[in-house]
């Protein structure tokens, strides 16, 4: 069969599954954690953070081993240089120029969670979110952007002559120096950019569709918890400042949509003939983090509104329900019913066969081969798991196979990933 035909069939398989129609076979669309391919190719995490082109080439080589229906989007390779340029302080990674933020060569990057904003600052933030983020959060999280503390108020532009003070900010010596430095940083990332474009092109040439450059979205509560207040702060706010917290979550919905539509991932020349599933990794909504009442009051309203707005813009939301969501299934089911065949629910530690029974008529389910099996194996156990999941979920379409956590974990062994792939081809066939 010719390559173009194979490509088309693969994409169609995924489209059918999302539309709740039976394709010819259950699709397999691993997301893969960021360093799976580079580790398989023998690169360290440090190399993966800094050698964008090598990282992209390793991805082509490693992913081409597997017969999948959608291949992972390459998140921007060579990110280390940009983070050094920014003086990023919300993350630690291998090879960071600042020793305080440098992890070992073989450690994946990890977020630093802390309150970047104090509870007392809600009023200031809610009065002018853009201004607050520019003048407070950006300098706090990026040591090279201290200048942003003096960033002029956008409202200056609306006043007679005051637009001048807005523009004068940009001709100050320090700002000019900063821009110059950034240009240099961006130039140093060119290899990564070329690698990213090359990856998309080479994969397509082999008939391997790369998942649409899905712009990332986040549940507004998680944006507050991850990047503004820290989990501890956000959870104290649930008790001490509930109204402010809810208002902030609600106000973050539209900016999230805007950020998706302007994702820097577009830089890689995304392939328009594939399918885009918008990845929404959820953090604090899982069972155990909060009660159902709290979930309903604080977490779900802004998240469901965000997903609803995405669907209205023809974006397919793919919330990743990391952890266990057994207690939340009624909320999830209700949303699926109101948005039939418009989303993909990706599960980690929730019983997907039970989910299929509950809401399989309304939403496509993705998941959930455990990371423990993909790392620890043995391949026969991986095969058994995939077989059982397919048998429980394939009826009527609406099921996609992927790993449970981050798709394929960084440390997954090749033979286990191969077993997962083979099992889909062996047991997932609807019709020859």
């Amino acid at each position: 069969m010719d390559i173009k035909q194979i490509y088309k069939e693969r994409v169609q398989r995924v489209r059918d599954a999302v539309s709740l129609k039976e394709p010819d076979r259950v699709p397999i669309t691993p997301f893969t954690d960021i360093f799976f391919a580079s580790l398989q190719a023998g690169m360290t995490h440090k190399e993966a953070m800094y050698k964008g082109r090598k990282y992209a080439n390793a991805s082509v080589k490693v992913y081409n081993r597997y017969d999948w229906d959608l291949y992972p989007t390459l998140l921007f390779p060579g990110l280390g240089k940009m983070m050094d340029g920014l003086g990023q302080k919300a993350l630690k990674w291998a090879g960071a120029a600042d020793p305080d933020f440098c992890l070992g060569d073989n450690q994946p990057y990890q977020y630093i969670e802390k309150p970047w904003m104090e509870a007392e600052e809600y009023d200031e933030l809610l009065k002018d979110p853009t201004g607050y983020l520019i003048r407070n959060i950006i300098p706090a999280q990026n040591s090279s952007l201290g200048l942003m503390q003096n960033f002029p108020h956008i409202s200056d532009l609306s006043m007679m002559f005051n637009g001048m003070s807005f523009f004068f900010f940009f001709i100050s010596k320090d700002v000019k120096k900063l821009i110059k430095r950034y240009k240099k940083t961006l130039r140093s990332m060119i290899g990564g950019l070329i690698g990213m474009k090359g990856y998309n092109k080479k994969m397509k040439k082999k008939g391997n569709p790369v998942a649409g450059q899905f712009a990332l979205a986040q549940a507004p509560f998680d944006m507050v918890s991850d990047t503004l207040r820290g989990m501890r702060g956000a959870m104290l706010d649930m008790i001490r400042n509930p109204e402010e917290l809810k208002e902030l979550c609600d106000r973050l919905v539209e900016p999230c949509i805007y950020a998706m539509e302007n994702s820097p991932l577009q830089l890689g020349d995304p392939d328009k003939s594939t399918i885009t599933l918008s990845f929404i990794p959820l953090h604090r909504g899982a069972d155990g983090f909060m009660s159902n009442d709290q979930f309903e009051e604080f977490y779900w309203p802004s998240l469901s509104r965000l997903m609803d707005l995405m669907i209205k813009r023809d974006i397919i939301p793919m919330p990743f329900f990391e952890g266990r969501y057994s207690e939340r299934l009624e909320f999830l089911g209700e949303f699926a019913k109101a948005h039939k065949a418009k989303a993909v629910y990706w599960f980690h530690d929730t019983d997907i066969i039970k989910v299929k029974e509950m809401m399989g008529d309304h939403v496509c389910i993705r998941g959930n081969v455990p990371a423990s099996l993909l790392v620890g194996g043995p391949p026969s156990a991986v095969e058994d798991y995939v077989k059982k999941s397919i048998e429980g979920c394939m009826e009527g379409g609406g099921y996609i196979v992927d790993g449970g956590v981050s798709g394929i974990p960084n440390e997954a062994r090749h033979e286990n990933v191969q077993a997962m792939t083979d099992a889909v081809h062996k047991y997932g066939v609807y019709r020859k």
Partner: protein
Amino acid sequence: MDFISEIVELNENKVMEVVKQKLQNNESSLKIMDDVKEAMKIIGDKFSNKEYFLPELIMSGEILRQIFEILGPKLKESQASSEKKGKVLLGTVFGDIHDIGKDVVKFMLDANGFDVLDLGVDVPADKFIQSLKEFQPKVLALSGFLTLAYDSMKEIIDKLEAAGLRDSVKIMIGGGTVDERIVEFVGADEYGQSAVDAVNIATKWIEE
């Protein structure tokens, strides 16, 4: 409402008011601490029963911190003097800097009367071995969120084995991507899905 209930209900301002009042009335900080401990035990139970979740646990920790601030060093003395159920050595394994799950486990073990030594995050194998020798716990609790933690846990347990220490402790593992399937791979004894499991498993082992 009595003092214990005020803590359990997380009435932060009222609790602090009462503590100050009690100190003014020359009530012993040991007695205050006994009440606080009782309240924390109830909060832990409520967490086990799924009446309370992380916001309440974090809030109670915040109230505890404020009480600590007022009672100061006296509190530590009273803590040291109380009898503990058994020793648990706890830490997030090397490579991984996540602490949320580990901290919840620590809170629950503390609330249930265990003597917990928390080694923090990104803890290397040698540090576990050294602390195991010095602290001599009955239970070792290894936490990890990232999938790299599997290999770290395996390495730590292999090293314990090589040092002839494996049989001196029971080992439980837990955290984001850890599950029961990985127990054998890393060479641990049991997996706990939640902090409540951690308390139950530790209790079972201490009583054995």
